[in-house]
């Protein structure tokens, strides 16, 4: 109905607003695009057909933003005539439905298939099929173990290292931290956890408790409440997401602020922690982005590949892996400018950057 249309519109606005912010070179980019589009005339005629497969979006804000950003990027690419069709499928966390949808996309002959899978395995047969059919199959966000496809993922180890370094710097030797993971078994969550489990003890910091909040503020709050209730002593918190829930529990129990907290990039959290630290650094923190726009970046890379460009092995991490390193980092030092740069983003989204087709070309191609 009409209501739906409105929602669609407003969402597009949101994403459009989001885009330019992290990418400050936006205007130049637009200018560059015009001539290139003409060059790509043959590709336009063919009209690339793109299918995106996402494991789920309901109940997972990260993947929801992933979904809107890849859709926005695709819309743009469509307007520029780079692709002719974009369809998106969501499997509601049902592996059977996921496999079915991917298989149908393969059978239907899409040119590009971008998958953010449920799990890091289980799709080998389909990948083979896609390869046989000459489809550009890109796995985005979570690493999928296969040498037949290109993985485009955020460098989770780098992400975790930035946080770990900050904690080590802030707390120093002999400190105790509580570690909040995402979902046990989720590849991003596991990679980060492994980095922390290695780096922190090496630096003489003890991880006194590890919990998983399933990327949920509500669960994070309950867990933090339980940790506080258990009388556990700790100095800092190293955390993947859900910082708002953790903060709620801390404020609710009126305990002193820990000596530091790390988190990823929800706008509401950024504003909240910035406010806490407005006058002086009351609660040291670091925010490191883990951009949901990775799907859109993957799309940009895929279009480049279809346009016949060749990947530069020197710019990749292994022959089938492209790491996107987090760039948007905020601490007390750059708090002011970072806050300004996201001034017109709504509370409910997260900071996210992604690459345009040209940027991707520049970054990863010969």
């Amino acid at each position, binding site marked *: 109905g009409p209501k739906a249309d409105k929602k669609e519109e407003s969402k597009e606005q949101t994403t459009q607003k989001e885009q330019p912010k992290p990418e400050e070179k936006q205007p130049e980019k637009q200018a560059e695009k015009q001539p290139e589009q003409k060059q790509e005339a043959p590709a336009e005629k063919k009209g690339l057909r793109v299918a995106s497969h996402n494991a789920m979006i309901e109940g997972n804000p990260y993947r929801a933003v992933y979904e809107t950003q890849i859709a926005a990027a695709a819309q743009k690419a469509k307007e520029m005539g780079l692709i002719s069709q974009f369809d998106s499928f969501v499997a509601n966390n049902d592996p059977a439905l996921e496999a079915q949808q991917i298989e149908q996309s393969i059978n239907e002959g899409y040119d590009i298939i971008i998958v953010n899978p449920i799990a890091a395995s289980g799709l080998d047969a389909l990948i083979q099929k896609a390869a046989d059919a000459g489809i550009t199959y890109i796995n985005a966000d979570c690493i999928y173990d296969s040498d037949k496809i290109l993985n485009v993922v955020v460098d989770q180890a780098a992400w975790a290292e930035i946080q770990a370094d900050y904690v080590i710097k802030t707390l120093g030797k002999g400190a105790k931290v509580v570690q909040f993971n995402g979902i046990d078994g989720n590849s991003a969550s596991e990679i980060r956890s492994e980095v922390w489990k290695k780096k922190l003890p090496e630096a003489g910091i003890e991880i006194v408790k590890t919990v998983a909040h399933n990327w949920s503020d509500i669960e994070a709050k309950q*867990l933090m409440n*339980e940790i*506080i209730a258990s009388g556990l002593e700790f100095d800092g918190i190293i955390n993947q997401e859900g910082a708002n829930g953790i903060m709620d529990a801390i404020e609710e129990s009126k305990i002193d602020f820990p000596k530091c907290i790390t988190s990823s990039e929800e706008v509401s959290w950024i504003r909240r922690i910035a406010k806490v630290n407005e006058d002086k650094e009351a609660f040291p923190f670091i925010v490191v982005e883990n951009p949901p726009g990775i799907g859109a970046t993957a799309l940009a890379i895929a279009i480049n590949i279809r346009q016949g460009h060749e990947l530069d092995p020197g710019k990749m991490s292994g022959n089938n892996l492209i790491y996107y390193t987090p760039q948007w980092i905020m601490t007390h030092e750059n708090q002011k400018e970072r806050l300004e740069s996201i001034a017109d983003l709504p509370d409910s989204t997260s900071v996210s950057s992604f690459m345009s087709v040209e940027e991707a070309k520049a970054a990863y191609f010969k």
Partner: protein
Amino acid sequence: MNKNKVYYFVKNNQIGMALLLSLLIFVVTIALNPKSLNVNAFGSILSLMSMLTIAAAGQTLVIIADGIDMSVGATMSMAAIVTVGILRGREDPMLFVIAILAAIGVGAIIGLCNGLGAVKAGLPPMVVTLYISNVVNRLQYVMTGGTPEFTSVSLIYKSFMTERLFQVFPVISFFALGMYALIFWLMNRTRYGQQIFLIGNNNRAAQLTGIRTTRLKVINYMMAGILSGIAGFIGAGNSGYIKCGAFDGMTIDTIVAVVIGGTLLAGGKGSYAGTAAGALLLIVLSNGLAVLSVSPSMKNLIMGVILIILLGVYNRAKPVRA
């Protein structure tokens, strides 16, 4: 003789047993981890228990009338989203009135659908309320486009809702007390309450005694919806960050709390005090397992086994052979 007394107490005093078990678990927790005896522990347990108790109010009514409401969580989430959407971080008292009315309205509509499906159409309550809850859940995403524009109530309101007096008594526990008074009045001081007990115990007899059973059961589902709506409104303030489906996990917790609190799944017997005791037992157990650093997998396992034991003691069906 003594043995018999214990047996009689265990068998007939489910609320007492739930409280006793809660105490036992709490004591064991403290014994194993003395640090966990602190004001925050009480505050946090009370707060979580209060939220669950509030959420389980509607479920108690429905189960007593021999139904089941699988849409409690979805209704709460919907009401919370509506609440936060209306408040938009503002604090105008008028808006609160509108928000709570909207939450009640949302609950009433969902409850009415449940009632019409489960009673008028005579579909199995478990299945029909489950599907209605699915639809409600999906509606939230469609309405908000996946991420609500506003995810939280204003800071002042939130800190009021999560305030703990003397670090121990959360404000929400007073809401729970208010809810208790309301439900107690409804169940024990009105014909409505009497009627749902009778219907739950023997629907046919109630019908032949002149109770308009169909109408009453539909009203009861609506009442449950309204209570879940109110729970969602309170939850919106208490839980900080609201997203679509924020309270979905509550449904099963409410059923478990109601049942281990001594309310018969087959209806006709039960109390809200029991539900509160059941909620306490669940929360203390979960808290204990967390405090003792039990891994999530073991936590699941232990919860399941304890549930089976409780059900085995209290919720066994009669044998075929009399």
